[in-house]
């Protein structure tokens, strides 16, 4: 069994994220870890996994060692079944053809809301971040899986700015806000895997990553987490998972 020191945080994130996907699903994947993890799942267990990219791509097979610098580059179209307009691929989410949206994030809060727009006051931001891209559309229109590095400054009680809505203010506030479908489903970090309470829609730990303690997770989280007897422990990455992953990203662009 592999020890934590034998893989990086990026590698763990990619592998645990890949495990969340099921064969036959239609997955809308963002650039970076999501693209890498979806491609990994495709090669490991899900040959029938259909990957969609924001640039306008359906069913691509990314070539090992030629990871695209964004989901709008021609490398994303390799062996695709179809390419289409970037607005049209997002409309597939609105119509309902997509099972899972899969993204990274800069900042997340207790209700799974994501901020990639501004740190501080939106009128006078201390930091202007790149913005939504398709993030707002994806998280508004389908079930979401988010992969994110676990740091206190990234796991805040309430994000400064809701770019991509999770469960908004909890309870049924998402639906009341005009989003009757989708919602945050899983959050994968280098410390643990999280779900959301069916009623309050607050984030709750499902399983700790191998070798990680509850204290570690709580210490790196800006809001109170409820651990209980159902909180399990995740199986460590296997040799095979690591080998295939490292073939995909030999330049270690995303796995660090």
């Amino acid at each position, binding site marked *: 069994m592999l020890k934590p020191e034998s893989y990086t945080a990026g590698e763990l994130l990619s592998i645990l994220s890949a495990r969340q996907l099921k064969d036959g699903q239609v997955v809308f994947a963002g650039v970076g870890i999501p693209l890498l993890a979806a491609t990994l799942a495709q090669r490991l267990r899900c040959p029938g996994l259909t990957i969609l990219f924001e640039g306008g791509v359906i069913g691509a097979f990314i070539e090992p060692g030629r990871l695209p610098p964004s989901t709008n580059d021609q490398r994303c179209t390799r062996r695709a079944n179809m390419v289409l*307009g970037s607005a049209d691929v997002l409309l597939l989410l609105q119509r309902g053809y997509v099972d899972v949206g899969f993204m990274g994030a800069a900042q997340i809060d207790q209700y799974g809301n994501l901020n990639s727009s501004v740190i501080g006051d939106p009128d006078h931001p201390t930091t202007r971040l790149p913005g939504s*891209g398709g993030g707002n559309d994806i998280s508004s229109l389908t079930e979401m899986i988010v992969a994110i590095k676990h740091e206190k400054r990234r796991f805040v009680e309430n994000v400064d700015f809701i770019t991509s809505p999770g469960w908004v203010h909890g309870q049924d506030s998402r639906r009341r806000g005009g989003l009757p479908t989708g919602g945050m489903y899983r959050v994968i970090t280098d410390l643990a895997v999280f779900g959301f309470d069916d009623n309050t829609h607050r984030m709750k730990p499902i399983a700790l990553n191998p070798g990680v303690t509850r204290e570690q997770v709580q210490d790196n989280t800006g809001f109170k987490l409820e651990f209980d007897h159902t909180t399990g422990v995740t199986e460590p990455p296997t040799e095979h998972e690591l080998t295939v992953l490292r073939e995909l990203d030999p330049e270690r662009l995303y796995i660090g």
Partner: protein
Amino acid sequence: MSMVQSYSSLRKDLAQRDRSLREKVVSLEEAASFVRDEDSVGIGGSTMSRTPMGLIWALIRARRRKLSCSRSIVSSDGDLLFGSGACDHMVTSWFSQGILWGVSKVMRHHVETGKARYDEWSHMAMGMRFRAGAMGVPFMPIRSMLGSDVLRRRPDAVEMECPFTHEKLLLVPALNPDVALIHVQRCDAYGNAQIDGLPFIDVDLAMAANKVILSTERIVSNDQIRRAPDQTKIPFFAVDAVVELPFGCAPHECYGVYEPMIRHMEYYVDLVNKDPVAGMKQYLDRFVYGPKSWTEFLDLIGLEQLLASARAGTAIYDA
């Protein structure tokens, strides 16, 4: 709301355009003269793909000012427009050089100091705004942005109750730019344009804009276009000027022709993210104002990089 052009003024603008079958080939410098200070400018492609970099380069050299630009996703093209002072207002869904390089210090510098404005919409909302403009209607209904702070910052989008289903919907206003800048793989002298690979929002942008400037890797005969009319994506009567500009997206990519010139991009990002003011000035002086021509600019990127990206670009067809 005044941000949407009234139908009568939209029709008047279009009625005044010469839509006859005529040759429109101009030089890169002439093309720049189609854009005036304070114009709203729609930019084709997305991130580092099919970006009309040559046309943007020419606008900066022509010292355009106060442009209000819009694009689905903005990369270093936005940096240069802000950094050169050509543009002080960007309407988009995402603005940085590229995910590989973190957050653009140039974008941050201009937005955080209030030198320039960045209006954020969702990616789909941007597309639907161009589509409404292309269809000649004042809005499109969508189901995203609702319940988010992205919407809270955009009072110019209107929530409505659907008269059919009584559900909540968002109406996003049509976007009809004064001018569109679009790069394609090939078109004829009339402007009939064919696009390979990822089309992004370019067709809607072209039909929405009140003026369209095309740059193209090569100009082909009208006969070649007419042999495959189902490959034509933009009709000639929507186009006002055509510029033949090989490597017209450099250092970005053009599907099936060349991939991004990553070494040049890394050099650029390193320079401007170290110092968004001095670094930008240095880049503009050397790569934008310095060269006598687009070919001279390409020469500064270097033949070796051009050939390597061209090799990678055509490789998409080997799969």
